[in-house]
Structures are given as C-alpha cells and as structure tokens.
C-alpha cells in the first residue's frame, strides 16, 4: 500500500492556487518575458559613492527619529486601548467595542495611505510621517497587546483579588509582569517595521533617507543611490541585531 502524501482536498488547493496565479498574471499582464527582464537591474549597478555617506547623517537621524517617535506615540496609545479592548480587563463592554473599533480603523488603513492623507491635508513634513506611522502602529500594537492580555494566566489575578488589590494594582502586579516580554517583543518588531515605513514614506515627502533615495534616483545618480542603499542596509541590519540581542535578554 502506498502512503499518500497529499489527499484529494490538499491536491485541489495546490491546483487552485496555481490557477489563481495564472489568472492574476493574465489580469496584470505578467509574462515569462518579464522574469527575463529582471537582470536589467544589474545595468544600474555602480560602485556606491562612499564619500557621499557622511552627507547622509542628518537624513539617517531624521528617519530614525520618525520611526522612534511614531513607535513611542503608538506604544502610549496602544497601552491604553489595549487594556480597554481586552475582554478580561475592560471596565465595560461598551468601552471594549469602542476601543476595538478605533484599533480596527487605525489598523486596516495602511500607514502609507495614512501618510498620503495627512500630506494631502496638512502638507509635506516629517511630522505627518510620524502621525501616519503612529496611527497605523497603534492599531497593530493595540491588537497585539489586547490579545496578549486575554491570554494571561488568571490565577495571580485571583490571588490579588483576595488581597484586595485595586484595578490599577492588579494591572501593575498581575498583568504587566506577565505580558511584558511579549510586549517588548512586539514593540521591537514594530520599531523595525516602522523604520522601513519611514524610509518608504520619505519618498512621498516626509524627508529622511527615502527622500534622498528618490531624488538621486530621478537624477540618475546611481552611485549615490547605492551609497544610500548601503546606509539603509547597515541601519536595518543593526536594528535587527540589537532587537535580537534585547529579545534574548528579555527571555532570560
């Protein structure tokens, strides 16, 4: 007797996903020729102009500052909304639904769209980028925070109840110590994500590395474009390593 690796249903799903890819390609006009054109990117390749890197210091700081400030604002908003929208800790179910709805709206509209909306409404500037990223991150973090709270062990809270702890004391002594490692994990992930978004939003006019990248790309100054890419790579790599180090420390 043969062992069946895939059952009919699983086989069907695989066939269906291929079919869907074929239809999508047809719809957007994607052909094998396009894949062959990909190596054209090599034509752009020039040695990065490393002497340009010191000029990128301010832009790098602007990008980091946008990502940091937006993450910071998002943490504060989502800490509050996270508690209010956790089923086991919400003071009232009306508040729960209001908090959940705010988080849902903030989350479902992508940060880039928030950014474009704010730029359209207020004009170009780093602050618009900070708010755009902060709004979307609040939606994401708030949901992560609420779900983490809903999964905590309720037993320590019961002990605190007998001891006579107030709502805020229960949060400080019963909830925070349990959720803190997960929270820090999410925050680090969010900062990493926001740094990338800050670079992309830069191209839409909020400044920083993204803006410099777009300007030099339009001027065909590819040696400078690649110098910016080197900086972006080092920056994201450093943040990833620092995050990994902090995570390992927290889990100890």
């Amino acid at each position, binding site marked *: 007797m043969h062992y069946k690796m895939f059952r009919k249903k699983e086989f069907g799903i695989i066939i269906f996903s291929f079919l869907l890819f074929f239809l999508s390609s047809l719809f957007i006009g994607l052909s094998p020729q396009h894949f062959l054109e990909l190596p054209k990117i090599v034509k752009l390749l020039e040695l990065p102009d490393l002497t340009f890197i010191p000029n990128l210091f301010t832009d790098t700081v602007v990008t980091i500052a946008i990502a940091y400030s937006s993450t910071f604002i998002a943490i504060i908003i989502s800490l509050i909304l996270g508690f209010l929208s956790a089923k086991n800790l919400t003071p009232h179910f009306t508040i729960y639904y209001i908090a959940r709805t705010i988080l849902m709206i903030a989350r479902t509209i992508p940060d880039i769209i928030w950014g474009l909306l704010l730029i359209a409404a207020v004009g170009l500037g780093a602050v618009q980028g900070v708010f755009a990223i902060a709004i979307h991150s609040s939606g994401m973090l708030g949901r992560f925070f609420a779900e983490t709270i809903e999964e905590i062990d309720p037993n320590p809270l*019961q*002990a605190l109840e*007998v*001891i*006579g702890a107030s709502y805020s*004391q229960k949060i400080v*002594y019963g909830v925070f*110590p*349990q959720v803190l490692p997960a929270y820090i994990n999410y925050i680090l992930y969010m900062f990493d994500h926001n740094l990338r978004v800050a670079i992309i939003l830069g191209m839409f006019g909020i400044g920083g590395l993204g803006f410099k990248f777009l300007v030099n790309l339009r001027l065909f100054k590819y040696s400078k474009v690649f110098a910016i890419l080197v900086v972006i790579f080092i920056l994201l790599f450093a943040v990833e390593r620092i995050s990994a180090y902090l995570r390992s420390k927290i889990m100890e």
Partner: protein
Amino acid sequence: MAIVKVENIKKNFAHRRVLENISFEVEKGEIIAIIGPSGAGKTTLLRCIASLEKPDEGKISFSFNGAGEMLKNGKRKKIGMVFQEFNLIPRLTVLMNVLVGRLGYTNKLASLLGLFSDKDIAIAIENIKKVGLGHKINEKISKISGGERQRVGIARALTQEPEVILADEPVSNLDPVVGEKILNDFVKLCKEKNLAAIINLHQIDYAKKFADRIIGLNRGKIVFEGTPSQLTEKAIHRIYM
C-alpha cells in the same frame, strides 16, 4: 468563641445546587479540614468565605480583631488565601510576590510605583524566613521548585497578617513527601500565630493528621462533622459514596 460563623448558605450555579444549607463555626486558632469528592462544593465554600463568590442565601459573619476592616474591593483585610496552583507571578521575585500581600495596607500610589515601607518589607522578609526560603528572597518564582512556590504562597498569605487563612487543596500539586512537609509547616505556623485555618484537602490521612476538626461534604451538603478520631470508615464511606 467562634470567629467565623457560616449560617445556612446556599449556592447555585446555572440551576445546579452546589452548596445546600451549609452551617458551621470556626474558633480562633482552630484548624478545620474540609474533605469530600471532586465537585462536592469545597472550593465554592472557600470562595464564599473569601468573598470571591456571594452565597444565594444564608450568611457568613466574622468576629475577629479587625473583622470589620474592609478593603476597597469589598474583601476582608484579615482573610488570607493559599491556592492549589500557587497563583504567583512567575517573573517576579520571591520577595515581590510576598510583598504583594501588603497591598491592602500600603498607600496606593506608592504601591503602583513599587514602593513599600520598611515595615512592609520587614514583615515580608520575616515570613519568607519563617517558611524556610530566607536564602531565596531575590530568586525569581520561575527558578524555584513547586514546593518552594507553595511556601511563597503561604508567606504571602501570612504577610496579609490575617486572622483566618483559607487554603484550597494546597498540596494537591506536590509530591506526597514535599506536600506533607509543607502542610506540617503550614499548620505549625498557624498554631504559632494562633490563626484559624480552613483547608480543603483531598487526602484523608492529612486531614486526620493535621486538623482539629473535619467537615465532610458530599454533593453540597455537610454529611460529617467531627474530630479526626470520629472519622470512621463508615463516615468516610458516607462522604465519598
């Protein structure tokens, strides 16, 4: 003189009667063991005494020193509780978990900042030493054994400076040797401080060995009440049938 008086309490959960006409009294310094099969209502009874549940009918009154001191959340300051699952916070240290027992006594704002008075810290450390964990004060809960965790749970309850301690299956999750030793130390500490203790137990031999009085519950009713020597095979059969 009775310091806890339970009078005719009844409790239903979703139309299922869990406690029916439960009445008994507890004297100061008395150790009471409540035994009975799973689902007999032992935990609900303790939860009613701890004000974690409200009886549908009947009354529970307290007449010890400070019995009237109520906490803001409606719980009594002088009733401590020890749990089957220890109910500690794993990421915090032994000292911090025990200090939590002082929350009913501290300034709320200071406690939110993690500040406790020297007196509170002294009481907590004294109780940690009493349960034999003086050498592990700054150890995280996640790094100590199950038996040691329950000792921390006992120290936390003692730090509340209670008059009555309720213990819900305190040694069920521990191996028999460690469990018996911890129960022995717990009862000794209660006797030393002249505290009343109501202990839910699964193990009949522990109830006979450590309690002054045993109450047998079956399907929410008291079917036995007496001294350990009065707990005969026939009485056991009546409790567990």
